[in-house]
């Protein structure tokens, strides 16, 4: 029995050259969108894991209300004191189904000196246990291994075993003329204002290195275990608590639950997700840029694919005008004819995009094996250009282009069906 799909497939073979060139255009468009989506997806995952684990923000950061704005100016007023920490700890203990671990943070600006040179730095106080757990996260290794220095993974217990260990960037080490290996180097001194505003100083020993990932932070940020920073600031308070959730926990739902617990305990707290602009403008800015650029390219590619289909189908319809009239004469309704042409478009798209899935995979594999390195804007070092081919993205692109194909075909054939039937039949088409 002659089915419409069968008929559609045969029609596609009518003009093989035109069909193949249209198929190639759809395939290329699909590959382009798929790999663009893969790159944006990879970029987002990398930003996510570095924000959560490398930058120690956790999935959620909690600070005293308005601390984001005013902590640097009035730290004493905007820290979380011991009582507040204990209350929050109790709440988190009751939410252990969702929370994997948490850690405290405290930052202060100061001067780092080797006795000869001094350099202004931001001292980032972190929880060594939380830091160790974060560096061991498989997602961090998977998506952001370029941001991890191998020595960090080799010596995960250094901050636990030696809590006065300072971690330097290469840039700061150069400024202070400190050469590797850092272990065994003379102690450095850090001076900063205590929480009460007095000047204080402590000795720290060198033993670790890190990278901030950002050019503008590489000569600024040093890492020091929390207890030493608290000693420097003469306080047992913390600036923020980073909460790390278990896999597949919905962050927004957790925030809602957590917020109500905080209100019940009369805690005046701000809660931030790791990608909130108030605490992570880099994430917002970068993803915003990628989405806009990506959206622009999606528009361009979809337009090109649509126009190719419209052009190809228009040529086909012009050649088959009398045939369309004949189909209508033998009893095909307008919808039957439209249906037939839509099936042609769908068949062609499905075939082209199926080939596109294979090509996307092959191209991604080749690119990844080539180990192409590049400097992202503002980055402190080169990272590998990686295309993480993703089935979900491929499916979304598949459906998008299928829709584009459908709508392009529909517009063209519907336009033709407005022509009077008698004019269709009398058109000079292919004569047998």
């Amino acid at each position: 029995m002659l089915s419409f799909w069968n008929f559609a497939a045969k029609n596609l073979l009518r003009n093989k050259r035109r069909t193949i060139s249209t198929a190639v255009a759809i395939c290329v468009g699909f590959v382009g969108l798929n790999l663009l989506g893969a790159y944006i997806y990879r970029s987002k995952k990398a930003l996510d894991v570095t924000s959560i684990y490398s930058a120690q923000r956790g999935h959620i950061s909690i600070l005293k209300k308005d601390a984001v704005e005013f902590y640097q100016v009035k730290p004493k007023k905007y820290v979380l004191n011991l009582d507040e920490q204990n209350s929050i700890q109790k709440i988190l203990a009751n939410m252990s189904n969702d929370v994997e671990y948490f850690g405290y943070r405290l930052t202060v600006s100061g001067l780092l000196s080797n006795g000869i040179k001094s350099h202004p730095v931001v001292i980032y106080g972190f929880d060594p246990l939380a830091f160790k757990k974060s560096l061991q996260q498989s997602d961090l290794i998977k998506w952001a291994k370029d941001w991890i220095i191998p020595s960090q993974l080799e010596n995960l217990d250094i901050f636990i075993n030696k809590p006065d260990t300072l971690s330097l960037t290469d840039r700061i080490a150069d400024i202070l003329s400190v050469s590797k290996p850092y272990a065994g180097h003379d102690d450095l001194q850090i001076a900063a204002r205590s929480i009460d505003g007095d000047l204080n100083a402590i000795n720290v020993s060198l033993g670790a290195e890190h990278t901030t990932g950002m050019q503008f932070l590489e000569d600024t940020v040093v890492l020091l275990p929390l207890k030493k920073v608290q000693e420097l600031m003469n306080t047992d308070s913390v600036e923020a608590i980073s909460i790390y959730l278990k896999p597949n926990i919905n962050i927004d739902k957790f925030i809602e639950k957590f917020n109500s617990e905080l209100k019940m305990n009369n805690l005046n707290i701000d809660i931030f997700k790791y990608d909130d602009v108030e605490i992570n403008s880099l994430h917002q800015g970068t993803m915003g840029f990628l989405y806009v650029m990506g959206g622009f390219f999606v528009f361009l590619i979809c337009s090109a694919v649509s126009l190719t289909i419209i052009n190809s189908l228009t040529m086909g319809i012009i050649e088959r005008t009398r045939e369309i009239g004949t189909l209508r004469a033998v009893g095909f309704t307008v919808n039957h004819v439209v249906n037939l042409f839509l099936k042609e478009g769908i068949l062609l798209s499905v075939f082209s995009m199926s080939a596109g899935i294979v090509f996307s995979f092959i191209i991604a594999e080749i690119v990844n094996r080539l180990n192409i390195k590049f400097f992202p804007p503002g980055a402190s070092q080169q990272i590998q250009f990686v295309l993480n081919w993703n089935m979900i993205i491929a499916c979304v692109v598949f459906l998008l282009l299928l829709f584009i194909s459908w709508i392009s075909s529909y517009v063209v054939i519907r336009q033709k069906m407005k022509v009077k039937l008698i004019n269709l039949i009398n058109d000079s088409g292919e004569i047998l």
Partner: protein
Amino acid sequence: MKNVVEIKNIFKSYKLGETSVEAVRNLSLSVVQGDFTALIGSSGSGKTTLLNLIGCLDQVDQGDILLDGQNVKLLDENQKSALRNQKIGFIFQSFNLIPVLSVFENVELPLTVRQGMTQVEMSHKVKSALLDVGLLEFANHRPDQLSGGQRQRVAIARALVTDPALILADEPTANLDSKTANKIIDLMLDLNLKKKVTFFFCTHDEKLMNRVQKIIKIKDGQIVNEP
């Protein structure tokens, strides 16, 4: 015998640039079931227009056309499509076969949009139609593998397959040589005689005119003889 077609005082005009041309003027006629009727007239007399109006390929400006008792003016596009599928078979001068389909599939085409037919029933009808025109052995051939006469036979089979009340043919032998044209005429007459298929067609072919039951002459959009 009942009237398959009843035409009552129809008018049809076309716009050609700035001017309006009256293709059919106050025309009335009937086609009886089983008739083998030729519509003859010079070029521009309105015979093709009349054929198209009867076949619901075009619409009258005034008047009524009743096809098997149904006034086609009252039908919407989908209903006209259904009427053409069930009641009318078309044979075109240029055969109008679908080049990518086989002979079998070309003949099967009108049945693919019919509801309630099984695959077996459709296959049987197609084979029966091909048998009637003597082309069963060519079922798997494509139209470009057939001669002109064979292609027209396929077109006749396609017109027959739906058991229509009426077959309309627009110059069915115009693109054929005389020997082939004769064979096609023989086939049409045979179908008319044996299967009581009603034929209504326009032609210039004198050989065809000599063999028809009825001749209707049309001139300037009006019938000039009563059959």
